[in-house]
């Protein structure tokens, strides 16, 4: 029996490339790790081209149905690769000046991307878990990169312990599901649920899996690790964690809840409603009190997870595509937002307090403008992409008649606007404390420019992306 490996070519290529780059890095005498960086970017680029070249027009279940190739997987892979490439551009100048300049930094990114690609195409609980673990382990190592910093080490330990517990929950839930249904494939579970009544134990397993996923997303009440990890990790790592993995986690959520457990939507919907409500409320309100910019962004991330879940709660194709659009938009904004912090970091000095943004509008007009655009977009103001994301999720919950949830989202976005405005205010209205200009590398400016332009361009012309998100769920 011959097996056609072509559908998995991007993953296989990336795996090979990552191993080769790892070897080259070991023997390379390049002190700046320039070679490793370039090779890593090149492998991602080639992988991306492969994914685009074989972009599926239908849904294929391959390799004993452990692997799904469909438009959603394609979209997730493309966006993950693109975001990671931008994240690496951000990271390059940042790690050059810090004791985390190691070839592994980039190679771990490659493995994380591989994990996310496996996750996106996971057709069974096993593949999903495999992808998730590959992603998580790479991320733990990345957070711990700065090993002489106590803050970083603390963050890494927290992240690891919390993440491990969450993985344990997920696995426990999966084993229960497997025990009841005897099925490991998503599609089989869905068929089982169509034919049989869901037993209490099965629902119990579902609860464990939802909890684990809420952990991974950092949704309230499982959000405790988010601010500490975002704060403690090197900023370039935070930028990465806050962007691409969110999209991959979305794929996990959709594959399990949307494809597998759609029959008992009513069960997980009510859980998600509680989680989303709490996330929006707690994230936004606690963010008001932050004066550390990384923690502020961390709480705002929690709040955004709440909004994003609104689309999932709707539990239909339109809702999922709204959530997909939201999470892509958010990943771009959040990558840009943390990228700005890298941009502002002077030498080894980190930006930590909002007050360090004072007078940025005068010191560096372009930088100030870009940051403001990103923040106003996160607040959901038109004509930026964040507006369409909000519009989509609000429409999704209105579709299923949850008017109160839409109104709550609206109220909470007013609260959100307040702290985003606080940052914009600091940038433009406060007098600068020093006149030092912000000097930044060309690569950094390029990456920031890309995210800024993406936010504005997708804000003015969101039609294509919205359509693509819709296409991704036509085989649901």
């Amino acid at each position, binding site marked *: 029996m011959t097996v056609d490996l072509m559908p998995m070519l991007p993953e296989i290529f990336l795996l090979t490339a990552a191993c080769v780059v790892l070897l080259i890095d070991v023997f390379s005498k390049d002190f700046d790790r320039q070679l490793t960086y370039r090779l890593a970017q090149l492998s991602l680029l080639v992988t991306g081209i492969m994914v685009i070249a074989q972009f599926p027009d239908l849904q294929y279940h391959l390799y004993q149905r452990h692997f799904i190739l469909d438009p959603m997987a394609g979209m997730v892979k493309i966006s993950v690769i693109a975001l990671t490439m931008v994240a690496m551009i951000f990271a390059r100048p940042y790690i050059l000046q810090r004791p985390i300049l190691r070839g592994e930094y980039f190679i771990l990114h490659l493995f994380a991307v591989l994990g996310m690609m496996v996750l996106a195409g996971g057709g069974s609980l096993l593949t999903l878990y495999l992808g998730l673990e590959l992603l998580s382990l790479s991320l733990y190592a990345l957070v711990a990169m700065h090993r002489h910093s106590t803050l970083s080490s603390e963050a890494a330990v927290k992240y690891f312990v919390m993440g491990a517990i969450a993985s344990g929950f997920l696995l426990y839930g999966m084993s229960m599901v497997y025990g009841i249904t005897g099925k490991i494939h998503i599609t089989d579970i869905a068929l089982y649920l169509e034919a049989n009544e869901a037993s209490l134990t099965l629902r119990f397993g579902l609860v464990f899996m939802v909890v684990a996923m809420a952990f991974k997303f950092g949704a309230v009440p499982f959000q405790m690790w988010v601010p500490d990890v975002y704060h403690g990790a090197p900023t370039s790592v935070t930028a990465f964690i806050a962007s691409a993995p969110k999209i991959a986690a979305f794929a996990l959520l959709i594959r399990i809840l949307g494809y597998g457990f759609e029959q008992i939507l009513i069960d997980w919907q009510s859980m998600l409603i509680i989680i989303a409500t709490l996330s929006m409320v707690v994230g936004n309100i606690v963010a008001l009190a932050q004066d550390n910019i990384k923690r502020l962004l961390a709480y705002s991330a929690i709040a955004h997870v709440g909004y994003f879940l609104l689309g999932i709660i709707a539990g239909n194709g339109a809702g999922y595509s709204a959530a997909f659009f939201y999470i892509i938009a958010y990943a771009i904004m959040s990558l840009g937002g943390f990228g700005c912090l890298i941009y502002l970091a002077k030498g080894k000095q980190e930006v930590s307090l909002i007050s360090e943004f004072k007078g940025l509008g005068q010191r560096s007009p372009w930088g100030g403008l870009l940051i403001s655009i990103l923040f*106003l977009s996160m607040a959901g*103001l*038109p*004509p930026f992409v964040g*507006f*369409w994301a909000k*519009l989509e999720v*609000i*429409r999704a919950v*209105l*579709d299923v008649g949850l*008017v109160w949830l*839409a*109104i709550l989202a*609206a*109220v909470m*976005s*007013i609260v959100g*606007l*307040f702290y985003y*405005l*606080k940052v*914009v*205010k600091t940038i*433009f*209205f406060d007098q600068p404390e020093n006149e030092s200009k912000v000097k930044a590398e060309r690569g950094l400016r390029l990456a920031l420019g890309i995210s800024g332009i993406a936010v504005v361009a997708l804000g003015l012309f*969101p*039609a294509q992306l*919205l*359509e693509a998100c*819709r296409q991704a769920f036509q085989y649901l």
Partner: protein
Amino acid sequence: MLEQLPILSFLIWIPVIGGLVIMFGPGDRLLSISQRVGILLGIITLLLSCWLTWAFATNTADMQFVEASRWIPSLNIRYELAIDGISLPLIVLTSLIGLLVLISATASIKKRQSQYFAAVLMMTGLMNGVFAAQDAILFYVFWEAMLIPMFLLIGIWGGPNRIYATVKFFLFTFFGSIFMLVALIYMGREADSFAISDLQKLPLSLTEQKWIFLAFLLAFAVKIPMFPVHTWLPDAHVEAPTGGSVILAAIMLKMGGYGFLRFSLPVTPDAVAEYAYWLILFSLIAIVYIGLVALAQKDMKKLIAYSSIAHMGFVTLGTFIIVYLTAMQAQSMALQGAMVQMISHGLVSGALFFSIGVLYDRMHSRDIADYGGVVNSMPVFASLLMLFILANAGLPGTSGFVGEFFVIIASFQADWRIAMVAGLTLILAAAYSLWVYKRVIFGKTANEAVARLDDVTKRERLVLFTLAILIIALGVYPQPLIEIMQPSLEKIIESATLSKIGGIG
């Protein structure tokens, strides 16, 4: 040939893109180029809007100069621009005021002038967009996007307490409009289209209408502003630079009134009938109570700000009184009054804020107590201000009279008590307007600084005389304006008096 051009798109995008070009092109380094380009763009915009008026057909209520193209097909959101008799006067007003603000800014703004130009131009374009948009989401995009330049305008060039004022302004307006967004999405789903004309036709139950109406009310009442959500306005006005105050008073407040006419009345007629009582009550409170508050002000800008709120009370009164009227003629008179009041208030309050700016540029004080006897050193200015003050008080022969007169007459046919309370404004407005005039302009020369004041410069003269001529022209001969609006207003009355519950559904 001109008919084929997308004039409305030009009216929006020429100033917006021009503003961006000024900010990132010549900037402050080549200030004289920035100034010239900015004013040229302002003139082009004004000329385009004049051409629009000239080519406008006054005998139909249909939308004119329609531009429609796909924007977001998956959500049925379209890029659709068109104008009718309500939008046109507001667009002309916007373009005119925008240009005047630019002209006056060349002298009075000292720091980062090119960015100021850019902000004003972008606002002009976006406000034109608000009045021209025929797709609800497009409307919302313009409505919100306009907050950003205004936020910066107050925050960068404003007075000492500007940050508090601008954040309050932003949050208040955003608070209002986010609920409107939810309502718009809700209706867009039901109608499967976001075109405003489709939303107006959409049958809705009374409960739905009530909620949607309240959502709209929050947005428009904050903007216009109605008592009791008016508190952001005095703060924003006092701290804003002259140009910011002028744009706020002359145009942004009108967006609220425009919203009532375009959305509230036709989309939720039954809810309007249900709540009209309260709205009229709040309008009367605004007219009387805010009028009294204005009387007590020590700060000139605050005084004019409060008087704006009182005047906008007439707009809301005229809009909602139609529920209690039966004759078509009286109803259309009420709405005419509301519209004329909006345009007139745009000119008068703009002129008043410009005048305060003239004084402030020389004395750096807005306190009434710092002035006195200005007439001795600034006779031309004093006579111009006299005209504006009298127009503010509603003197016959000025534009201020026409709108108030129409609204009072119309409300008299509904209930004489409403008319009587509204009529109190004639006393109150005269009292606070004339009293402040007396304290600032007449009397003994208050101090050395006042004695050394120079009269208006050529530039200021250009701005103030333009407004003075228009105020008198509109006061003496408002007929052309009314003719433009009449068919569109009748159409609104038709849909506002037709119940959506029994009739269509």
